[in-house]
């Protein structure tokens, strides 16, 4: 495959940045999108140019490190992470536009790499349960109804990649918040801190500069883990309950 790549290059947080166009050839359709970028970077290295900086880690779709807005879609055209997106999803001769996540709380560090530590601070503000450490408790000592356990498990698949923010026209992280609130709020262990958790996490979300949700649904469509939109309803319901309880 021969491709034309239009890639956002930005030499540091304060650089203005812009789109640069590159040609790559000899791309196999079995390569992942990141391997295709590796080929480009080898070409750039050989020519003595600065390679394109992008995030990646596990490259098996479970860590949440890779990102990229590909042709206007977070993680590209398939419901998966960029590392699990393969070049067979594209055609020979395609022009592919690659940009970093765009959000004020996700500042660009370099090229396609953004700083997502705002998510870490949201987790630190309440995305945990407080439990004494020690030997593992007996698994069945705290019963969890199966439907609640399944829902918690399904939304616990959120890898915090930030695709929801990148896809949202408002730059809101409500799907991420909703996933964490639902995950912990459905389980017995999450109950003691349930109301302070939602208020503190939403407070941190707003403080970081993420936008408000308008229930548009771009986030759920972009989520590589298929977190459904109803977690945002759960988030709103929990916040409303917290409000009623005086938090």
């Amino acid at each position, binding site marked *: 495959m021969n491709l034309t790549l*239009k890639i*956002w290059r930005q030499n540091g947080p304060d650089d203005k940045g812009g*789109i640069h166009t590159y040609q790559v050839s000899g791309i196999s359709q079995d390569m992942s999108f990141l391997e295709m970028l590796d080929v480009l970077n080898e070409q750039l290295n050989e020519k003595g140019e600065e390679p394109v900086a992008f995030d990646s880690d596990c490259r098996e779709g479970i860590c949440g490190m890779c990102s990229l*807005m590909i*042709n*206007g*879609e977070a993680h590209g055209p398939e419901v998966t992470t960029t590392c699990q997106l393969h070049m067979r999803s594209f055609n020979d001769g395609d022009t592919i*536009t690659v*940009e970093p996540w*765009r*959000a*004020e*709380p996700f500042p660009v560090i370099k090229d396609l790499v953004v700083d997502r530590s705002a998510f870490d601070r949201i987790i630190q*503000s309440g995305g945990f349960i407080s439990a004494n450490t020690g030997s593992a408790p007996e698994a069945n000592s705290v019963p969890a109804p199966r439907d609640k356990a399944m829902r918690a498990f399904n939304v616990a698949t959120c890898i915090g990649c930030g695709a929801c923010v990148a*896809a949202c*026209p*408002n*730059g*809101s992280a409500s799907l991420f918040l909703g996933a964490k609130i639902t995950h912990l709020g459905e389980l017995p262990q999450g109950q003691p801190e349930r109301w302070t958790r*939602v*208020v*503190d996490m*939403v*407070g*941190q*979300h*707003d*403080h970081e*500069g*993420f*936008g*408000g*949700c*308008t*229930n*548009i*649904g*771009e*986030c*759920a*469509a*972009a989520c590589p883990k298929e977190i*459904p*939109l*109803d977690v*945002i*309803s*759960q*988030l*709103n*319901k*929990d*916040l*409303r309950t*917290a*409000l009623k309880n005086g*938090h």
Partner: protein
Amino acid sequence: MKGSRAVRTTIALKLLMAVSGVLFIGFVLGHMYGNLKAFAGEGAFNEYAHHLRELGEPMLPHEGFLWIMRVGLIVAVIVHIACAVALWRRAAAARPVQYVAKKNAGSSLSSRTMRWGGITILVFVVWHLLNFTIVKVNPSNGETGGDNPYALLVDTFDLWWMTILYLLAMVALGLHLHHGTFSSLQTLGLTGSAVSRARARATGWIVAIVVAGGFSLVPLSVLVGIIEK
């Protein structure tokens, strides 16, 4: 952030938007029902308009019910707009650098036009009040006043461009209600499952079609001569 207050969050703003929006849904449903009285003829329509002013008497003063409604709606409008402006500004600040390429993968047209659609409806409401309630601007016939609302209605929609203006406004209203109904239910936390979310979406369709369709029936019927003086 430790020690955050629920009332200071963006979700609190959204809740205010949802509650004020639900009030508007109730109002437009009632207003649309009243308009359909035009099909029952001049007497029934004018009687209905007159009765709105007497509703609640003698417990309420003349036009008392109407003024309670008006004050309530004005407060709701102010709350709705103030929250929308605050959230719009936050959204703009949250994405200072735009994408070169951005696709819409999961959103409806109605959901993406809420803000400009809302402004369109606001401008229309000002025009509508000048036209029908304050009766200051009446392009069809300066003579027809508030004494005969039926005549005012027929005179107005006998003008083809007025009918088109109102129909366009109903398109804007229908789009706003389509997403607004669903969005308010989601914001109120009533769509916690796939089934309830599908029901909320269906409710959005029903409210939009019933309200925008019901409102449109009257001007269209005047234009084609089903309703006449």
